[in-house]
């Protein structure tokens, strides 16, 4: 169980013959992810770690009944790759690539919405349902199967927190990297809706950061939907970037305070008003969670 990916997910890797694509294909195969095909235009007919490579997504999807794609294609070509995957009616597309122009991302999202494809990312570490399927670049060993869902806008900070949880014997149902760009496919509210439907997930950790208002929207969703006595879902949050100055991008294209919008304070206050515990430091999260499960 968990959300979006599981042991039945049949994956193609777009950009499988590149350095990143090749490297992570091996790691994902090692983890047990069902990788059924790879795509690199002009390299059809070759193999990578026994995975057959095709020239086009449609050919691979047709021959291998793939349901998901993970994209390692460089930024200038990533939008085309994502559109190609979306046109082939894949259910899930994980867009690892960083530095995709936002104009391209906007186009991808509009088309994905029409096609009913879920896009994760761009600029995401991917998604992992421990012991079932890893569709991403996260270090595998820090995750353990369990009942905590994680949705995060940050990569290594997620690893930090997942590792803390695992150490505290709080395994994860699914850990979902939303992506560090200003425009991404899934946001916290989407993640919460899915975790709420997942029988395995008993609590959720949201890892936010400065920029945009995805955390504020999550807080609003939580206070109107997840506080009901019938289906309560405990949520704990962390927000990075209290020390960030306005107008500066903090590494992620999406992590920027513009005027008064997108500050850590605003997000933390919104969460608190929605009754969500906000951790001061990453290491506080297991404690806060333990009280709720």
């Amino acid at each position, binding site marked *: 169980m968990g959300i979006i990916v599981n042991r039945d997910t049949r994956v193609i890797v777009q950009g499988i013959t590149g350095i990143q694509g090749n490297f992570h294909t091996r790691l994902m195969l090692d983890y047990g992810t069902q990788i059924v095909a790879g795509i690199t235009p002009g390299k059809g007919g070759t193999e990578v770690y026994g995975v057959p490579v095709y020239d086009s997504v449609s050919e691979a999807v047709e021959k291998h009944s793939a349901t998901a794609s993970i994209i390692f294609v460089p*930024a*200038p070509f990533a939008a085309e790759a994502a559109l190609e995957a979306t046109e082939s009616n894949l259910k899930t597309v994980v867009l690892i690539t960083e*530095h*995709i*122009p*936002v*104009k391209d*991302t*906007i*186009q991808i*999202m*509009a*088309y994905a919405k029409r096609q009913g494809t879920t896009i994760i990312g761009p600029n995401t*570490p991917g998604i992992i349902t421990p012991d079932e399927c890893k569709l991403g*670049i*996260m*270090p595998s060993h820090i995750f353990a199967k369990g009942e905590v869902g994680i949705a*995060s*806008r*940050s*990569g*290594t*900070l*997620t*690893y*930090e927190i997942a*590792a803390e949880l695992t150490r505290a014997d709080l395994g994860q149902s699914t850990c979902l990297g939303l992506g*560090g760009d*200003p*425009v991404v496919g899934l*946001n916290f509210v989407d993640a919460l809706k899915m975790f709420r439907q997942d029988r395995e997930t008993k609590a959720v950790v949201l*890892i936010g*950061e400065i*920029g*945009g*208002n*995805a955390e504020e*929207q999550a807080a609003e969703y939580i206070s109107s939907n997840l506080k009901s006595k019938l289906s309560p879902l405990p949520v704990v949050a*962390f927000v*990075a*970037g*209290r*020390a*960030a*100055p306005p107008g*500066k*991008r*903090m*590494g*992620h*294209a999406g*992590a920027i305070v513009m*005027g*008064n*919008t997108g500050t*850590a304070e605003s997000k933390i206050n919104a969460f608190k008003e929605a009754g969500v515990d906000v951790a*001061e*430091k*990453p*290491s506080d999260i297991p404690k806060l969670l333990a009280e709720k499960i």
Partner: protein
Amino acid sequence: MKLFEYEAKSILAEYGISVPQGALASSPTKAKVVATQLDAPYVIKAQVLVAGRGKAGGIQFASSPEEAAGITERILDMKIKNLSVNDVWIEEKVNVQRELYFGITIDRARCCYVAVASAAGGMEIEEIADKEPEKIVKILIDPTLGFRSYHAREMARRLGYSGKSIIRLAKVFTKLYVAAMDCDAELMEMNPLVETTDGNFVAADARLIIDDNAIFRHPKYETRFLSEGQTELAPEEIEARRAGLAYVKLEGDIGIMGNGAGLVMATLDTVQHYGGSPANFLDVGGGASEEQVASALNILLTDRRASIVLINILGGITRCDNVARGILEAKKKVDFTKPMVIRLVGTNEAEGRRILTEAGIHVLDSMEEAAQMAVEIAGGR
């Protein structure tokens, strides 16, 4: 990437939007020459890449070329929000009947571009949104449809215009939209967009931020993106950008680096939580090589305000042994040293620790422990 006002205006002019006649001057002498070719009165504007130059005295008026030269001299001597002024833009003053705002930017939550207009121009849009939200008109732009002439006319109407003015103003709006899309703008605005006393619309000020990720599609800005004096970035920030690192200069004394934007932000927050003050944000990114770690550390070691260096690495793709070797390499090159607190866990952790421990550097397990120790050491100095 932010463009200067004069650059943004020349793009507007290319797309057929009226802008005041004007010219650039980098000296009082040049200012006098260009002013002579323009009609007085003049507006003289510091070309700096920060908002709020007006309040800082960076925009002044002159009624003769001589006065223009004098004002130019004073403005070129200013520092505006820590930035020096290399050029002024001298232009003819327009006769204002009304000041509007119009801009194209991104609605992150809705995954689309958004056109924003206001009948109250001249202030920053956030300020308008704060003070007179009822004066703001927004249209979300359907990505497959674009911003159409009728969207523009509807906005003009909702700003209170009627008759032929609707059509005239709408044309200016759609031109800005086309320019913004062609430029891969993250933000492109005319503020104020002036309705002149004779009923024309003139962009009296313009701002353009190009999506950094789209610079590859705009080769003419590619070198500019990495060059000094042409951006609001500090020299260290430029150096980091050239090395492919994400760096932001801050005001404190604890130099900080790590891998991953969220982790580095959390490190800064934790340092602040323990009462310390970060000197910077520096993300070496995922899968950093020995060389990248070395260049990153070099920036921190040569930053005079940073009295101590805190390194926080959680190895996933990034290999701890590479990080350790990069640290030693950087230390070798810089002939002075600073206290270093290093937290290093994850992939190839044992090897990384061994390399550093052998070089006499102490390695910690936890980010919080490391942050706390860094704050203590910095405080002890």
